[in-house]
């Protein structure tokens, strides 16, 4: 067992009278690749939103394990959580559409390259240095993911598949320790999905980070993840390796049995 990176204990989220996430406990370890599956409306995205602070938890504890020790993420804003090392993509792509690909990536680096206010408005040499460093780093990242050619294009002009890839690159630019991917293969054809599979493996390997992905495409999930959580009706149904999950009767029932 490797050391834990993030744990969530008995987290609950209710919207009015409706419980969207009930008593879910999960743990994500260092450099692990985890899948999160479940039928539509099972609360997968809600769980992501809770863990990234987009929506606050009703109860329960979320902790992040860093070099400085354990840090509670309860009540933290999304920006603080992102700065603590958690990044994500979105189910319905949320790029900065009017801005260029390069700027999308540079924005994600905002917190890693400090420029003082006066440095930037008076264009001191330090400003140009920082800008150049930042741009080089962003271009390097774009090159890794084969996006150099479109660096100066507005994000909205990119084809769908490339937009998905850019979103992942942008998330990586924040230098996360933990990356949440919300349905990265949605709307992709099998060929693109295969590319994505390779990409995800490569990221985990090259960047040494933990990746959690929500996915409906079972071929992708079963292919890449090391461990799986299954959610149903906001509650945790099962946990284990892909092969174990595939044999879990409760999971089979939830997926195949429908009402039965």
């Amino acid at each position: 067992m490797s050391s834990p990176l993030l744990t969530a204990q008995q987290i609950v989220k209710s919207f009015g009278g409706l419980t969207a996430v009930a008593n879910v406990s999960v743990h994500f370890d260092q450099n692990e690749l985890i899948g999160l599956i479940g039928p539509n409306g099972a609360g997968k995205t809600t769980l992501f939103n809770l863990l990234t602070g987009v929506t606050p938890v009703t109860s329960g504890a979320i902790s992040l394990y860093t070099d400085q020790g354990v840090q509670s993420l309860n009540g933290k804003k999304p920006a603080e959580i992102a700065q603590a090392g958690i990044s994500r993509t979105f189910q319905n792509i949320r790029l900065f559409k009017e801005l260029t690909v390069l700027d999308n990536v540079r924005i994600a680096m905002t917190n890693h390259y400090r420029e003082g206010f006066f440095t930037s408005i008076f264009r001191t040499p330090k400003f140009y240095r920082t800008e150049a460093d930042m741009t080089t780093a962003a271009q390097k990242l774009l090159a890794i993911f084969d996006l150099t050619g479109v660096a100066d294009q507005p994000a909205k002009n990119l084809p769908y598949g490339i937009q998905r890839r850019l979103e992942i690159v942008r998330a990586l630019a924040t230098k996360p320790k933990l990356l949440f991917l919300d349905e990265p293969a949605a709307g992709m054809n099998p060929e693109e999905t295969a590319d994505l599979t390779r990409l995800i493996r490569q990221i985990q390997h090259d960047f040494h980070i933990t990746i959690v992905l929500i996915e409906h495409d079972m071929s992708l999930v079963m292919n890449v993840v090391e461990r799986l959580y299954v959610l149903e009706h906001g509650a945790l149904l099962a946990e284990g390796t892909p092969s174990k999950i595939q044999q879990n009767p409760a999971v089979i029932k939830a997926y195949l049995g429908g009402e039965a």
Partner: protein
Amino acid sequence: MKANLKYNAAWLGVMVLGFVVIDACEFLGIINSFIENMLVTIGINIILATGLNLIIGFSGQFSLGHAGFMAIGAYATGIITQTLVTPIGFYLSVVVGIGIAIIAALIVGIPTLRLRGDYLAIATMGAAEIIRILINNLKITNGAAGLFNIPPLVTWATVYVFMCITTIVTVNFIHSRSGRAVMSVREDEIAAESMGINTTRWKLAAFVFGASTAAIGGSLHAAYIQTIAPGDFNIMASIAILIIVVLGGVGSITGTFIAAIVLGTLDTVLQNFGTLRMIIYSLALILIMIFKPSGLLGTWEFSFKPLGSRQRKEQSVHE
């Protein structure tokens, strides 16, 4: 680095050239005090509208309270230069105006910037009206009668230099890490938050920045026109600045310049039409908006950088 130098030198050249041309015209008598008045009004409007464009066009926050911050700058100058009748007094008053405007922008912005779209617009409008009503009832501001006989410490040249400086500073702000963070808030607040951008902080930064440039505009207005009254800073004044921003193109500083010049000239030319002037003005406004819905320039920005490479770029966009 060399490219930057060339690029900056080009802009410097444009600014100096503009100055020399105006000065020559002034010297030769082509520009009399009537034209000068128009130019100064345009210059002040550029300062005001550039700041508002930063708030509306770049941070995506719809503020309708710009005249309130302008009033703060104007009254700071009006009051301070009553006793300190020197250029130093004027510059001091500008600094004081900016300081108070920043404080006011923080007081207004921290609670209201959570609101979205038109709700924010109406809240900022309310805040600006509150500022104006306070000025209208205070003793130090001489109430509704306003201040006049403000010493003329500002010439067109001062306004020109201030216009250049605020524009440089605003454009530099936009083309920096801060500016990109601000724009990401406009594009998608939730995504920006998830990328570690403290959206509240950056929204506030843009708002405060815009407010301080408005204060500068107000100071220049007070010292040039030499008369200020609370009525000068009502809702209609905020709307007049908004019109410049939208007409030029939300998110285009070049557009703001063009729109301020076009509207300023139009307004002056229409002075010859007597009572018809406002009818023609409003018709022009409606027609421009209908035929150019995203403003005269949209989000297009003039730049020396792509002059050589623009054609290549356009091709790739059309592919």
